[in-house]
């Protein structure tokens, strides 16, 4: 059972903290993603686990064995890089066999594992090519196969899809998910792309400014984020600080355009609450005397995106486009309704810039 456990792992350069003391666990066979904006320390964390960067302190265990004191070649991890990092002077076959040769795997076993990896990564017919003769997608498949043949206890991915074009990225993403289901290797994946993270992961660790802000399943993090940063980073949202009216069970927040809405998770005695309004959690109601006005409308097929100017805010509202949906024209007066129960968010202070800016 190879689960990965980090306790108190941290990294600083002089007085600059790149990574605050971090604890987390990736249970055996789980696919966990570190998600965050660039510079949040996610790649540093991954490189520390791989052993190609050193931590300033803390402990890393893989399958119960302490690995942070070992050099990368003894850690039983394999890594897939954003730039593919294939060996340009070796054929695909030699690339795939490199790690096996280094680990002195018997040649019959080498051949068996390479054959297996070629089959699942769809590399038939490419074995005798050189890396530069392959497309980006093919190169990344080779890199993936090169990691899989090692049968590592842990697979690490450093934004492996970022260099590919959109369509290829999506298909390779689905292949990666299918592959993980088949092989079941414990995996730690780094990305700044929230769609990628939500589509692939069993669990997401949201990172910001060198620390893990929140963790949970993609569904839980999207629907009921605890931290304002998570709400803001996953999907599109408007973060608003709203005054609280009433007490106890009748507790509500007043919306800037006059209406009020029920709220959960409010701290005792708080007189204001930070809430997240998702574009799909809002709806527009045409009303000649409405407080808002449609300033932009775009039809994208499955949905309509409106921008509504209301109470000095510019709100993005997404409406599912059914058969009978009528497109509201720009200039139409509307009211905005909140369709879901709101809940109060915790703010770690890193996101104050987004607050109330909508």
């Amino acid at each position, binding site marked *: 059972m190879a689960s990965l456990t980090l306790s108190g792992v941290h990294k600083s350069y002089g007085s600059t903290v790149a990574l605050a003391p971090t604890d987390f666990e990736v249970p055996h066979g789980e696919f966990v993603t570190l998600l965050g904006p660039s510079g949040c320390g996610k790649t540093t964390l991954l490189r520390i686990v791989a052993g190609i960067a050193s931590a300033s302190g803390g402990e890393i265990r893989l399958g119960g064995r302490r690995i942070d004191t070992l050099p*990368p*070649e003894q850690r039983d991890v394999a890594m897939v*890089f*954003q730039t593919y*990092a294939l*060996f*340009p002077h070796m054929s695909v076959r030699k690339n795939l066999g490199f*790690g096996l040769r280094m680990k002195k795997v018997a040649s019959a076993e080498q051949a068996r594992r390479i054959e297996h990896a070629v089959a699942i990564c769809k590399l038939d017919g490419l074995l005798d090519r050189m890396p530069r003769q392959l497309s980006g997608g093919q190169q990344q498949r080779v890199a993936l196969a090169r990691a899989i043949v090692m049968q590592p206890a842990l697979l690490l991915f450093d934004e492996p899809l970022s260099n590919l074009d959109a369509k290829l990225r999506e298909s390779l993403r689905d292949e990666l998910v299918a592959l993980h289901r088949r092989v079941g290797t414990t995996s730690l994946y780094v990305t700044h792309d929230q769609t990628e993270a939500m589509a692939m992961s069993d669990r997401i660790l949201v990172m910001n400014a060198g620390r893990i802000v929140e963790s949970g399943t993609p569904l839980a993090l999207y629907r009921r984020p605890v931290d304002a940063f998570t709400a803001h980073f996953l999907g599109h949202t408007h973060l608003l600080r709203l005054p609280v009216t009433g007490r106890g069970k009748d507790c509500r927040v007043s919306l800037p355009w006059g209406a009020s809405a029920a709220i959960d998770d409010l701290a005792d005695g708080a007189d204001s609450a930070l809430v997240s309004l998702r574009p799909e959690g809002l709806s527009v109601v045409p009303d000649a005397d409405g407080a808002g006005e449609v300033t932009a409308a775009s039809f994208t097929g499955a949905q309509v995106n409106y921008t509504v100017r209301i109470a000095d805010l510019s709100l993005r509202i997404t409406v599912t486009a059914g058969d009978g949906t009528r497109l509201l024209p720009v200039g139409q007066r509307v009211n905005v309704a909140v369709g879901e129960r709101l809940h109060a968010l915790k703010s770690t202070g890193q996101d104050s810039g987004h607050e109330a800016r909508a």
Partner: protein
Amino acid sequence: MKNASAADNRAHLVAWALLLPGLVFLGALFAGPLLWSLAGSLGLDQGLAGFTLEHYAQIFTRPALRSGLLVSIYYGVAPVAVTLVLSIGLALLLRRHFRGRAWFNGLYKIPMAVPGIIAALVVMTLAERGGFLDRLAAPLGLALPRLVRDPWGVGVILTSVWKQLPFMTLVITGAFAAIPQEVSHAARTLGAGRWRTLLWVELPMALPGISAAVLLTFIGTMGSFAIPDLVGPPSPRPLAVHMYAEFGSGHLPLVYAIGMLLSAFAVAVLLGYYALSARAARLLGGSARKDDHE
């Protein structure tokens, strides 16, 4: 169609006209003297009737000259081999971060600016019997072996290495720096330790740069005159030194012949290198070298 070919011709003419200054320059300063030397070495400066291979024959029959060719090759190969090992070590050291690295990085390049003859004089003052090092070692009861004008040409090798080291290190450092870090990191996570990563991944990837540096320094030292003349043993001497001696005694055709032989050897090595790297490029399915021209 006719118009098109006329335009083509005009374009060709313009291209040649633009190339002309360059061609004249190359012809006057490079091809001309080379052809003149070739003619002189064959006795053709006396007219067609003067044709002879005698001067070339001399190189291979006079013992001093015959060994001169071998010594030239030796003075080309030995310093380059020593420099190569030292430069790779230095380049690896310079990849790491240590205190004073920036200083060191600037200082090691100084010998590049020092002429060979000065380098030879420096080595003479340092390593000559009764020189600086000898006097330092004497109180300790140590006697230095003969390092200047010694039969093995240690003085020549020492000086050439001192002179070549910066250039070779510069090129090799560049070749290593051009390797993406991720590739080395990938090798590490795939089970290769530091040394095996160097041997199987980094050195092969740096090879085009390394071999070019080796070739250039080899050709440079093989023809060098000042260093072997000053710190080399009186006998045997390399061809370049013989050339100077023969020039002094007015045997111009022989000087031409030796010069042609040295040039031919350098060109042969160069062609061999191109053939090898072209073959390597084919084997690699077109290596990075080809990339440069695309």
